[in-house]
């Protein structure tokens, strides 16, 4: 037990260190690299007066270390400072976007599971038959299709041709549940397909390996129904090695929302990131990036802690 706690504690400390390094990298990349931040934001034609005003607003006269520590101190207290392009606090701007992105990611994961498991099951049962080869080709093509292209094609099929869904996934606090559902359907489907294409291949191979194993043969010989053998004996064992694929997919979703939210104009963290960069609103950009990276680090940490807890050798304290 002590061993488990020590492992988990170490993992949490490591994640905090990584997060700290990430914050340093972001800050250094945007604010310390050569070139004046104020000139970069306002452009070459800016007057000396407006440059000085912006420098004062961003405290650019202070040394970089002091600015970094002040920024970090604020973040620890949940204060990200103010956006340049609108005088509102960054935390107020980002809170609803974060909520929207979380809803989108959740929906994507709910869609992802059946999209990954069902084709893999079909392929494993009909191994080396035409349907197996066909699905292999389909997953390879989907795997090679950039997410922005897939999103655009889905948009064309469901919105322009079938007219089933809105082309702009615009939601706000007043949106009803149905409106949310319609808005996130296509972005979530895009993300789910990309993730599933990545997982299906591995899941298929794992399933085939499990189906060839002795205990599955045993279950078959006991006279259990095919369905029961597949769903109760084979699938759970094939899913465990696929867990790390799902952890990688969490990482994908955090980057994938940047592109996919932009295609559907969905107001989440991803489109916020792109907008902040387009408007050269560096404080907002830095905060958004830090939150995105933070999510990935926390998700990875949880996945690792989960696998520590699931590891029977560690659990029994041997």
């Amino acid at each position, binding site marked *: 037990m002590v061993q488990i706690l020590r492992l988990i504690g170490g993992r949490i400390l490591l994640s905090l260190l990584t997060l700290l390094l*990430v914050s340093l*990298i972001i800050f250094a990349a945007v604010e310390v690299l050569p*070139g004046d931040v104020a000139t970069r934001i306002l452009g070459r034609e800016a007057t000396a007066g407006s440059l000085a005003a912006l420098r004062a607003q961003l405290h650019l006269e202070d040394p970089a270390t002091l600015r970094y520590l002040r920024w970090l101190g604020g973040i620890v207290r949940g204060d990200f400072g103010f956006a340049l392009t609108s005088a509102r606090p960054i935390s107020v701007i980002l809170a609803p976007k974060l909520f929207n992105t979380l809803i989108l990611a959740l929906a994507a994961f709910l869609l992802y599971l059946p999209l990954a498991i069902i084709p893999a099951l079909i392929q494993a049962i009909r191994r080396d038959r035409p349907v197996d080869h066909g699905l292999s080709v389909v997953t390879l093509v989907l795997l090679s299709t950039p997410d922005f292209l897939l999103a*655009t094609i889905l948009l064309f099929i469901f919105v322009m041709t079938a007219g089933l869904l809105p082309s702009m996934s615009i939601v706000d606090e007043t949106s009803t549940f149905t409106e949310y559902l319609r808005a996130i359907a296509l972005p979530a489907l895009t993300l789910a397909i990309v993730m599933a294409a990545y997982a299906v291949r591995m899941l298929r191979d794992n399933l085939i390996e499990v189906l060839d194993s002795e205990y599955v043969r045993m279950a078959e010989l006991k006279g259990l129904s095919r369905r029961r053998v597949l769903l109760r004996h084979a699938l759970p064992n094939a899913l465990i090695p696929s867990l790390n694929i799902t952890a990688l997919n969490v990482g994908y979703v955090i980057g994938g929302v940047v592109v996919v939210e932009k295609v559907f104009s969905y107001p989440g963290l991803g489109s916020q990131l792109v907008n902040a960069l387009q408007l050269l609103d560096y404080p907002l*950009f830095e905060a958004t990036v830090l939150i995105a990276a933070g999510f990935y680090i926390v998700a990875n940490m949880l996945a690792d802690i989960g696998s520590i807890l699931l590891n029977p050798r560690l659990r029994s304290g041997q």
Partner: protein
Amino acid sequence: MTTASVSRPRPSGWQQASRLWRRAPRSFRIGAVILAFHILAAAIGLFWTPYGFSQLFTGAPLSGMSWQHPFGVDQSGRDILSRVLYGGHIVLLLSISGTSLGLVIGATIGLLSGYIGGWLDEILQRVLEAIISIPFIVLALIAIAAAGPELAGNPLLIVLVVALVYAPRIARMARAAALDIVTRDFITAARLRGESAWSVMWRELLPNATSVLLVEFALRAGYAPVLIGSLGFLGFGMRPPMPEWGLLISENRAALITNTPITVLGPGLALASLVVGLNLFTEGLARILGRSVQIGQR
């Protein structure tokens, strides 16, 4: 009694090559054919396209598929096929040079870090781990933010961004390979001969890590067109009128409303088929070199 040695005619280079080709995995062969087609098309597109890649009014704006314009015409009347053809060498050159630069930086850092070890390795690992924990596209956008708007659209910036995104991931693989090689005797021998870390890396580690690095290079090169396309699509990559494929898809997205999907699907087909080719090639290459690879890794 001596047996007369029957001397078989030595197989010619061509015969050897064709035997190797027939023995190669099917994915490798299909991938290589697709890649050869893309390289050929890009080479042709560099010198000849049906219309100029930025020539206006070649046909009725926003028209769909026709014999004169197989990929349709965009809203300024530019022929999409010509744009896709001309864009080929841009996509290929940016991807290859970005990935190569990332390979050189990543392999150097990874091999040296794994060989030298100690606190330097420890620090480098933490930093690389931190960079890797920033998602691909986000890391690319940070680099673009750092470069500032002055450099926007500069092909050199895109090469640097691709290299920056890949180098830490390649370094991690190279380090793992180095840790494996370092335990062998010839490394100890080299160390005892008093060779410098640089020369050990160059003469002992690198030749033994070639297959790992080759597969890693192919894998990363397979995703580079998507990364470059995503940047172009978001408006942070190549600038109009350069016909980079992601940018083409973004430009013609508006035309979907007028029901000319081919203007988007044409460039999309080019991009997706290139990535399919690269992925198949990588999978086959990994099998030839006896490595396992997870295609589509991001």
